[in-house]
């Protein structure tokens, strides 16, 4: 896009700046729309599993429900508790929302269609996802209230625990793809399975990692069954208890943007990203981002499905799963994957 702005007679620096801003808008605005629709989809799927109708009043099939909710929240008053730490209380939702957005900078939507094509793309994702916890911790502490504080403590322990095994799971993918660059990782999956399937997931060594990554993604985004941070039966609404109006909506938006990000990561790292499922020429006629969107939609359906069917974990079970099962298992797979690659690729 930089070349386009340069052809309009701008110097390189201005063209680069304008291209970057345009790229950010091209990602962030559709993402907000996607978040609105995915909240609607979440409620509809959940309702269908519970044999209810779900939102069906606002607009055709209730499609405009999220926008109505957004408008309602926008018109409400922002209440800051008197005992709260005002600055941090208001910064916390902004951090959550911003962090959820900036991770999208390295997500490839098609071959080369990525805002920042950096060598350390996957590390950037890890770095950004580790920042997500600050919004929750600060919200919990700054609210100066018991339930949010408990929620913040739980959230920080949960996210740190699962980030460790997530890092090890990613190492398997990185070793197979031989790169940290997201685009390279997608390209490495072309014809990976028997020369015809475009996915790491069908590799017997990587399939367990794909499953573990899906579960870790649930834990990282604090979705059911790992939604201990907002367990309504014990903590009211967790760290969001004291929030109202737009500050509450920002948490909500950030949370769902994170969920879509994790779905996209599942698709990109293990199931071929913007590549079609099979390495067959006619399938390449469909634009890459359509395949990516379809895969994201599928994984989001899995997320909702899990939310509707699986009961919430207890805190000690959550910690046991993270430290005693996923961590050793992912470590073993690092050894297995690197051993296999040393035998076959680098022998």
């Amino acid at each position, binding site marked *: 896009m930089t070349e386009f702005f340069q052809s309009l007679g701008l110097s390189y*620096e201005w063209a680069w700046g304008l291209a970057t801003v345009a790229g950010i808008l091209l990602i962030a605005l559709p993402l907000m729309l996607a978040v609105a629709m995915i909240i609607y989809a979440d409620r509809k799927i959940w309702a269908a599993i519970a044999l209810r109708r779900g939102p069906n009043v606002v607009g055709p099939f209730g499609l405009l429900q999220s926008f109505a909710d957004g408008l309602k929240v926008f018109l409400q008053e922002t209440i800051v508790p008197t005992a709260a730490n005002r600055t941090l209380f208001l910064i916390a939702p902004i951090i959550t929302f911003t962090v959820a957005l900036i991770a999208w900078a390295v997500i490839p939507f098609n071959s080369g269609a990525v805002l920042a094509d950096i*060598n*350390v793309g996957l590390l950037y994702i890890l*770095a950004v996802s580790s920042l997500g*916890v600050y919004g929750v*911790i600060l919200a919990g502490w700054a609210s100066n209230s018991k339930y949010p504080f408990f929620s913040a403590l739980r959230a920080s322990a949960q996210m*740190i625990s699962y*980030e460790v095994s997530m890092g090890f799971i990613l190492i398997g993918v990185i070793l197979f793809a031989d790169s940290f660059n997201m685009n390279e990782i997608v390209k490495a999956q072309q014809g990976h399975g028997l020369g015809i399937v475009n996915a790491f997931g069908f590799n017997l060594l990587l399939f367990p990692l794909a499953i573990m990554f899906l579960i870790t993604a649930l834990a990282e985004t604090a979705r059911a069954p790992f939604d201990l941070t907002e367990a309504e039966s014990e903590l009211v609404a967790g760290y969001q208890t004291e929030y109202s109006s737009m500050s509450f909506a920002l948490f909500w938006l950030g949370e769902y943007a994170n969920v879509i990000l994790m779905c996209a990561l599942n698709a990109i790292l293990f199931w071929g990203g913007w590549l079609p499922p099979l390495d067959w020429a006619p399938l390449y006629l469909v634009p890459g981002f359509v395949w990516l969107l379809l895969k994201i939609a599928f994984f989001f359906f899995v997320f909702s499905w899990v939310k509707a069917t699986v009961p919430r974990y207890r805190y000690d079970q959550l910690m046991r799963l993270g430290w005693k099962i996923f961590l050793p298992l992912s470590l073993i797979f690092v050894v297995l994957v690197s051993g296999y690659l040393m035998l076959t690729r680098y022998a």
Partner: protein
Amino acid sequence: MIQIFAFYIFATVCIASAAMVIFSRNPVHSVMWLILAFFNAAGLMLLCGAEFIAMLLIIVYVGAVAVLFLFVVMMLDIDFAELRAGFVRYLPLGALVAIILVAELVFALGAWNAGAIDMAARAAPIATDMTNIEQIGAQIFTRYVFLFEASGMILLVAMIGAIVLTNRQRAGVRRQVIADQVRRRPEEATRLVDQPVGQGVEL
């Protein structure tokens, strides 16, 4: 142009937030300023072209270490009056550390200006065709492999030490054993009794 601009922004914010770590009265605010300082240091490293180290700085320090700091600081009930009472008592020691730091900074800057180190003879000649990660890996796993493994062993020992120090075995604790629960069959847990009328059940 953009790089110079970015450098001055990162450097200024880094120093200012480092100062705010010391000056802010609320310890939680201090940790937040510290995180901002880490961020800007990572930005400076990006400007040097060390993107791998920049990302590691954020993952390790911001993502893990600072969270633990925040955890501890949030849980502590810090009494500011008590802190200020200790100020005079620790002043000589603090002053000593400060003097040593300043002296070392002056010394380092002097050595830098003298420029006596032969840069051609340094350990890691930079191959421009490799990415950052490959360069670091190539150095760590060839030239510095024993130092690297030694540091790994030291960390392992430290980890085991921490576990040994905090681990306490309590007798008589009933723990959930998931395998036992899964292995349990209906025959072990339930019993069908053909109960005659008018008699108690043997439990």
